[in-house]
């Protein structure tokens, strides 16, 4: 390649994309309509004819990373993907793409219902950027992956929708691009097939391909992505780790819901319809705010050897460390600890008062609480830990403020549910005595 080697697969600079209003309203211009307008002497005013979809996006996507783009419906995600793919041209700004791009924006582009699966693979593959020889060489692999069996020689119109999607997905994933662009289509087919497609995605990641993904499924984002970018009101609002961004995004959405903001199409709304800003809480990082009497300055998770962790296994020991700062002698303080899964539901909440923890009175100017978990006991996924500080006299301006940290549990177990109780299975030869439960799960906490 002639370009100097860069670390970034995609560089987007100040990209603005406007659409003519008529294309959004869905009216086509015809000679007739133009003639009628001209006869009536109507001139369409220059302003208000355009809709700003993207208002200056800056984004760098490093090579080999999987980046999720989050945002509300209509916040410009798909437009951005189409710009990267080259379907649209930016109104202003530049997009540099280093490598061969394959876009899974829509499955089955150019499928012809009267043709057999095999013939459609050829056409579709070529449309997606493979050469004829390439498609022929991969034909068997594609057919095998689609699991269509002898249906491959039947016309596509006889396929069920699942079969159709499977075929289309198989072709799309065999293109072998440097950069893969995916718009909401990971969930294809039944559970078995979607596992397979997930495995294919993992393979892509392992091969060091760059993946740009748009999805509303936060679990996917947190499980798959190295980074997340939050597109809001036509701009990149934040970029960071998936857990951080998705938690913040969720908060903003629920805040907007709480304020009963009307969810209009963002591009049509004044100011781009951005979600409300979050109150400037002290999030993950420390930096104690000025003048609070007492504040939780930092919450983090440590592993079995006391090291700070972002990802933890379910069977290990963990501690939640809570650093606090007290400016004045405060009495009657309560720390409330809440564990929630990243998509919202609270799993457990307790406080120093509930557990009757003897806190020193008055609180020393600086200190640390440790919440010790002998065993994590959670399922795989992303979680949010938040610690809220309450004082009895409520004079504390920082009271009610919380500090939080996110972490994820990674596991090779395939168990489901809410939590992972300590358990063991016992196989007896014959039920001799009345069955005795040996370390069988106690009652689920959820009930």
């Amino acid at each position, binding site marked *: 390649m002639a370009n100097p080697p860069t670390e970034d697969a995609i560089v987007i600079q100040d990209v603005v994309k406007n659409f003519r209003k008529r294309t959004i309203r869905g009216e086509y*211009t015809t000679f007739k309509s133009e003639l009628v307008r001209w006869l009536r002497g109507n001139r369409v005013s220059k302003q208000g004819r355009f809709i700003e979809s993207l208002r200056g996006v800056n984004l760098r996507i490093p090579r080999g990373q999987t980046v999720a783009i989050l945002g509300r419906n209509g916040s410009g995600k798909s437009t951005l993907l189409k710009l990267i*793919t080259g*379907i*649209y041209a930016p109104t202003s700004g530049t997009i540099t793409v280093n490598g061969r791009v394959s*876009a899974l924006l*829509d499955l089955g582009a*150019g499928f*012809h219902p009267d043709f057999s699966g095999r013939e459609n693979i050829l056409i579709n593959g*070529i449309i997606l950027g493979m050469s*004829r020889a390439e498609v022929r060489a991969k034909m068997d692999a594609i057919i095998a992956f689609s699991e269509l069996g002898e249906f491959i020689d039947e016309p596509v119109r006889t396929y069920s929708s699942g079969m159709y999607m499977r075929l289309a997905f198989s072709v799309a994933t065999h293109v072998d691009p440097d950069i893969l662009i995916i718009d909401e289509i990971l969930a294809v087919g039944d559970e078995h097939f979607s596992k397979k497609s997930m495995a294919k995605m993992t393979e892509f990641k392992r091969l060091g391909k760059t993946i740009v993904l748009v999805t509303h499924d936060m679990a996917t984002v947190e499980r798959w992505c190295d980074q997340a970018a939050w597109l809001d009101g036509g701009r990149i609002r934040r970029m960071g780790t998936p857990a951080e961004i998705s938690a913040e995004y969720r908060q903003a959405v629920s805040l907007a819901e709480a304020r009963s903001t009307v969810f209009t199409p963002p591009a049509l709304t004044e100011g781009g319809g951005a979600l409300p800003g979050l109150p400037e809480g002290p999030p993950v990082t420390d930096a104690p705010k000025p003048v609070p009497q007492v504040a939780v300055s930092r919450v983090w998770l440590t592993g079995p050897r006391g090291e700070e962790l972002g990802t933890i296994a379910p069977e290990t020991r963990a501690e939640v460390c809570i650093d606090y700062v007290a400016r004045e002698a405060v009495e009657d303080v309560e720390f409330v600890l809440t564990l929630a899964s990243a998509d919202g539901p609270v799993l457990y909440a307790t406080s120093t008062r509930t557990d009757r923890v003897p806190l020193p009175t008055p609180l020393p100017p600086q200190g640390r609480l440790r919440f010790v978990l002998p065993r994590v006991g959670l399922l795989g996924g992303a979680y949010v830990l938040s610690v809220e500080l309450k004082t009895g006299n409520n004079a504390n301006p920082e009271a009610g403020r919380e500090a939080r940290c996110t972490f994820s549990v990674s596991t090779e177990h395939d168990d489901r549910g809410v939590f992972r109780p300590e358990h063991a299975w016992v196989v007896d030869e014959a039920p001799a005595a009345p069955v005795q439960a040996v370390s069988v799960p106690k009652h689920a906490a959820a009930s």
Partner: protein
Amino acid sequence: MIRNFRELYSYRGLLLSLVQRELKARYRGSVLGFFWTFLNPTLHMLVYTLLFSVFMKNQIPNYAYFLFVGLLPWTWFSTSISAGASSISDRRDLMTKVRFPAQVLPATVVATNFCNFIFSLPLMVVLGLFFGVVPSWHILAFPVVVLVQMCFTFAVVYAVSAFNVTFRDLQHIVMNLMMLWFFVTPVLYKLSTIPEAYRRVLQVINPMSILITSYQAMFYEHRLPDAVPLVSLLGVSLCLLWGATQIFESRREEFAESI
């Protein structure tokens, strides 16, 4: 223009596959299959022969063959234009979902109809033999005439398909214009039957009349086509093609948004 065609060449695999598919699709699911290629022009020919030779007592010898010589290239041209007009605006699935070279679509239409034209040539020759007309060496000029028609057709299709994206009723207007165009082109009649005064005008404003008379010269009259109009038409077609590709390229970025 060069860039446009170089790009088209680089997508030849795609073009080839699409043409193949169009050809297959046309005949798939019909009992007569491939014979539709022959059947369509034959039926046209029979209707016109009945009308002009039997009812209206036309004086042209071997009228059916004469008609066929003009009708085949005309069909190539007219079907390319009327199908090409909506070739881009009808393929929203391709234009908005994948990065797709837009000029392949009109090119596919022209190429597909060109194939149909070529496939039906044997039928024309057989019909000529039936009337006792044996092809002479003059048909060596055939590729030249085809090339000129190809350039001209491409120019018109590019322009029409690009405009049709923004002005959707263009395709219907084009359909009607093609009908009109057919009757001012000497397919059903000889150019010589037109009064002298109009003949020049018609030849100048209607490039198709030059092309059709060239085919008739080669296959029916056994002489070489008139070089001057043909060569000047080639020049004009290249200019038109240049203009059309300019228009096409300038509007191309809007296609995906306007469809």
